[in-house]
C-alpha cells in the first residue's frame, strides 16, 4: 500500500500551547502551556481524565478549538506553524496532512452518504484527482484497514456496518489522503473490548508500515500501555509527566500519575484484589468538593488546588471532557 504512505519524515512540535476560553467575566484556562514533540513511526499517547484538556489539545492542532477560544503558542508541523493558519490554508492541511479519527464513528460519519462518496469526495477535494483514481484510493484505504470486500463496501451506508467496521471506515477516510499525522481521539472508547483489540492492532500496524506519526488520546491507561510508545499524562491543562511507556507505567514519578495507576485494575501496584480496592477507598478522600460554594465547572480555584500527597483526589472536575 505504498500509495497510502506519506512522503518523508515528519515531526510535530507543540510549544507552550495555551488555550483560554472566556466565560462570563471569567476565563477558563483549558490548556496551560503544553510542550510535546513526536514524529513519524511513533505513537504519542496523551492520557488524562475528563476535563484534563487532552481532547482540546488534539482539536487545537487541526484548528477546531471553539471560536471564542484564545490560543497562543506554536504547533509546528515540520516548519509550518499550524497555530498561525486560518481559513483555506488550514483546510488544505486538515484532512490532507493531518488526519483525524474521533471517538464515535456513528456520529463522525455522515449517515446519509455512502461510504464510497464520503471517501472519494474527501480524496478529490484534497488531491484533485480523477474520479477513477479517487475510487482506487478509496478501495486501497478500505482494504488497508481491513474492511472486507472493499469495492462492494463503497456503495454501502455507515449504518450497514458494525461499530468496529464503522471505526475502520473512519480510519480509512483519515488515511485516504496519505496524511503524515493521525490524531486519534479516544478511537476505541465506544467499541467493545474484543473489537477494540483489532482496532488497536490496526493503528499499530499503520504506524509500523506507513510511518505515520500518531497522537493517541485516551483516558484508558490499559489501552495506552498497549499501543503508545511514549506517554504524556495531562491534568487540568498541563502535562504533568511525560516519558517512555514502560517508565510511566511501571515507575511513575508524579503523584497524579501514581494515583491514576493506583486506581487502575491490573496495573503493577494498582488494583489487583479487594484489599487494594479497600485501600484505595481509604487512602483517598472521597470526591469531596472544596466547599459548598464551589461552582461545578473548572475554575482557577479548583485548577490550582494543591496536588498534595499521593494519591490525589481525582474526581474533582464535573462536566464533560474539555
Amino acid at each position, binding site marked *: 500500500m505504498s500509495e497510502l504512505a506519506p512522503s518523508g519524515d515528519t515531526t510535530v512540535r507543540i510549544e*507552550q500551547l495555551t488555550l483560554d476560553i472566556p466565560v462570563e467575566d*471569567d476565563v477558563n484556562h483549558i490548556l496551560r502551556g503544553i510542550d510535546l514533540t513526536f514524529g513519524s513511526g511513533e505513537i504519542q499517547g496523551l492520557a488524562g481524565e475528563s476535563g484534563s484538556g487532552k481532547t482540546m489539545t488534539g482539536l487545537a492542532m487541526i484548528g477546531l478549538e471553539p471560536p471564542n477560544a484564545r490560543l497562543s503558542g506554536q504547533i509546528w508541523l515540520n516548519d509550518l506553524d499550524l497555530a498561525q493558519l486560518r481559513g483555506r490554508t488550514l483546510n488544505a492541511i486538515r484532512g490532507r496532512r493531518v488526519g483525524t479519527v474521533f471517538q464515535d464513528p456513528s456520529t463522525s460519519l455522515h449517515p446519509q452518504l455512502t461510504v464510497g462518496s464520503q471517501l472519494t469526495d474527501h480524496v478529490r477535494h484534497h488531491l484533485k484527482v480523477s474520479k477513477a483514481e479517487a475510487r482506487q484510493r478509496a478501495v486501497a484505504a478500505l482494504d488497508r484497514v481491513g474492511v472486507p470486500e472493499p469495492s462492494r463496501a463503497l456503495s454501502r451506508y455507515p449504518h450497514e456496518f458494525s461499530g468496529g467496521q464503522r471505526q475502520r471506515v473512519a480510519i480509512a477516510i483519515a488515511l485516504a489522503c496519505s496524511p503524515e499525522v493521525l490524531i486519534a481521539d479516544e478511537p476505541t472508547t465506544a467499541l467493545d473490548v474484543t473489537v477494540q483489540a483489532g482496532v488497536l492492532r490496526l493503528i499499530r500496524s499503520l504506524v509500523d508500515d506507513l510511518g505515520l506519526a500518531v497522537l493517541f488520546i485516551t483516558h484508558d491507561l490499559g489501552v495506552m500501555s498497549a499501543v503508545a510508545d511514549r506517554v504524556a499524562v495531562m491534568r487540568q491543562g498541563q502535562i504533568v509527566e511525560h516519558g517512555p511507556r514502560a517508565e510511566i507505567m511501571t515507575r511513575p514519578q508524579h503523584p497524579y500519575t501514581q494515583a491514576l495507576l493506583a486506581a487502575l485494575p491490573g496495573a503493577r501496584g494498582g488494583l489487583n484484589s479487594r484489599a487494594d480496592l479497600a485501600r484505595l477507598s481509604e487512602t483517598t478522600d472521597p470526591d469531596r468538593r472544596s466547599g459548598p460554594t464551589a461552582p461545578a465547572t473548572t475554575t482557577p480555584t479548583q485548577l490550582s488546588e494543591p496536588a498534595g500527597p499521593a494519591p490525589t483526589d481525582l474526581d474533582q472536575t464535573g462536566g464533560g471532557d474539555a
Partner: protein
Amino acid sequence: MSEPPSDLTQTPPTPVPAAADRRPTVAPASPASPDPVSLLGRPRRRRLWRAIPKAWRTPLGLVAGVVAVAWLVIAVVGPSIVPHDPLAQDLPRFQPPSSTAWLGTDELGRDVFSRVIAGARVTILLSLLLVCLSMLIGSILGVVAGFFGRWVDEVIMRLTDLVMAFPTVILAMVTAAALGASLLNAVLAALVVSWPSYARVVRSMVLSLRTSEFVASGRLLGFSPVRSMRVDILPNVAGPTLVMASLDIGTAALLLSGLSFLGLGAKPPMPEWGSMVATAVQNFDKWWLGLFPGLAILTVVMAFNFLGDALRDQLDPGATKA
C-alpha cells in the same frame, strides 16, 4: 433558583506546586497565563451585574425585559394616567401629533396617545389570559395523553391533528365568526387554535420522561403514579412549557389584534390596537393613525419574544450546569 454564589467569595487559589521529578514537564506558571488572583479585584459594578441572572445579561434580554415590564405597568395603570378620555370625541378630527394630542387624533377626534395607552390593557391582559388558558388546557391534555397512553393518547392526539390541519388564522376567524364578534369570543377562538401545540410538546416531554432513569428509580421506590407525576415529571415539564408560553405571548397579541383588525374582536368604541390599525387603513394619508398602534404591537411582540428567548437560555439545563 439556586445559582451557586459568585466565586468572588472564595479564597485566592494557591499556585500548583511544581512536581519534582526527573521528567519535569510541569511548566512553572507561564507569564502568558493570567494570574487568577488578578481576576478577583474587579470593580464593584461587577457585583451588580452579577446580580442579574446570567441569561439576562445580554443587551437584547435587558431591553426586552425593560420594554415588557413597561408595557405591563402601562396595562395596569394606563387608564388612570391618560391625558384624555380614550373614548371622548372632544378634539378636532385628524389632527397630526402636537402638544395637545401627542400622537394626534383620529377620525372621531379621539386622542391616539390615550387610546394606545388604554389599548395596552385590552391587548396585553387578554394575551396573557389567552396564553395562560391555552397552556393550562394544552398541558392537562398533554399530560393525560402522555401518561395514560393507548386510546386516550390516540383520541387527544387525533384531536390536535384535526385542529392543526387548518391554517391558524382561518380557523380562528371561522370560530370567531361563528361565535359572534366580541373580544371574549376572539379569545375563545384563539384558544381553540393555540392549545394543541402545548398538548403535543407536553405529551412528548412526558413520554420521554416516563422512560428516563430517575423516574424509573422513583417507581422502583414505590412512587404512586400521582406522586411520580407530581414530583418527577411535572417539575421537569414546567420549565420548557413556561418558556414556550412566554414566547407565545407575542403571537397571542398578534392573533388577537389580527382578529380585531378583521372586525372579529373588539367592537368600535373600545380602544384596541388591531382595530385602530384597521381604521388607519381607511385613512392611509394620516400616518399617525396606524404607525403608533402598529409600533405598540411590534414592541410588545418583540419584547415578549426576546424575553422568552432569555428565559429559555436560563432554564436550559446546559446553561444552568455552571
